[in-house]
């Protein structure tokens, strides 16, 4: 799950959270797949952020969009003071292992997303999509 600015939304992404207007009205349900026309509609409605499934966008800076591979690499920096401390070394290695597993899962998901994008959309492609793509 990743919260992204609407400018980075692309057709094929799926909503991980419903899109809700300020007053609380739901505009689009969770699980819905975005198309170019839906994205344009959201932009018109001044929705500036949406939450989509997976982690499709690489955004700079630390913070909310946790990139586990990066976390894993940071462990040796964060624990640099405690290289001699048995307990803290154990903690560090355990935490690095946690992020490693998460990073692997994240990478696998990303690969799956990418292969979905490059594959020609023959099975169950939405009509809307073919109508709007120019050759």
């Amino acid at each position, binding site marked *: 799950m*990743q*919260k992204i600015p609407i400018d980075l939304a692309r057709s094929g992404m799926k909503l991980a959270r419903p899109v809700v207007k300020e007053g609380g009205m739901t505009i689009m349900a969770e699980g819905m797949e975005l198309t170019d026309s839906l994205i344009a509609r959201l932009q018109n409605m001044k929705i500036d952020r949406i939450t989509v499934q997976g982690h499709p966008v690489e955004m700079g800076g630390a*913070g*909310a969009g946790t990139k586990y591979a990066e976390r894993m690499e940071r462990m040796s920096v964060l624990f640099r003071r*405690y290289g001699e401390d048995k307990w*803290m070394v154990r903690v560090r290695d*355990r*935490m690095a292992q946690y992020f490693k597993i998460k990073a692997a899962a994240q990478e696998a998901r990303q690969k799956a997303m990418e292969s979905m994008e490059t594959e020609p959309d023959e099975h169950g492609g939405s009509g809307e999509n073919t109508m709007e793509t120019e050759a």
Partner: protein
Amino acid sequence: MDEDLKTIVKGKILQVADLPTLPTVLEELTSLMADPDASSEAIAKVISRDQVLSAKVLKMVNSPIYGFPGRISSIQHALVLLGFNVLRGIIISTSVFDMMVMSMKGLWEHSLGCATACNIIARRAGFEDPEEYAVAGLLHDLGKVVTAVQLPDLHDQIVSTVQSKEMTYFQAEKDVMGFGHDRINAWLARHWGLPPNIREAMARHHAPHLAEFYKPMSCVVHLGDFLVRLFEFGNSGDDQTAYLRPEALIELKFKMSDLDKVMDEMAEQFIEVSDVTF
């Protein structure tokens, strides 16, 4: 360092309560707190009078940090669900952080992240009223903010010591002032009449094994601070991890696998929490 410096620093720190930027509401609330007959209606009325503050408080209590996302519609409602202590903690932290401009935005995020982690940890440990743990997490580094506001010169010295001596912020504070924000937290908490459990957690989050009366809450905040640094969500003033006291895990009856679960939940919630800005 010497007693004189400590007395001067303490005096200057506690003057923060007189700053005109702090809402007058806070003073009224502190005195209402002393009155055992004060009703929640009376308290809600005092808070609601300050519309800017009420809006901020409502935004905060509706974040996932306190466990009722998007479901609290009024101050009165928040008082019933979260209690007076939690609300007062939120008012203190938002007001104090408000005085800081952008330079300390990272510490605000660090505090929000810690509050989130504390709620998750407290629930996993099976403690009642996890929102009280969350607000203790929110307030845990308040002493750093107040030092920066009241004693900008000392603050600058601390920041440059972090760099030049490769120290953690906490060590640098002790290097410069002779004591850390844990001590300052204790002064502030007493000054604002915060309840003893939150006060001790604020004062003991770097040494939870020394907590006398409220060890569980001190351990929750200690672990929350450790984990939020691990994710580097926000910025606590240095780029090192804090020492994780094994006693804290023992106190909470946590195994390493419990930490995995807590971290999973933290990652999920950080996406939402990063939105709680002013």
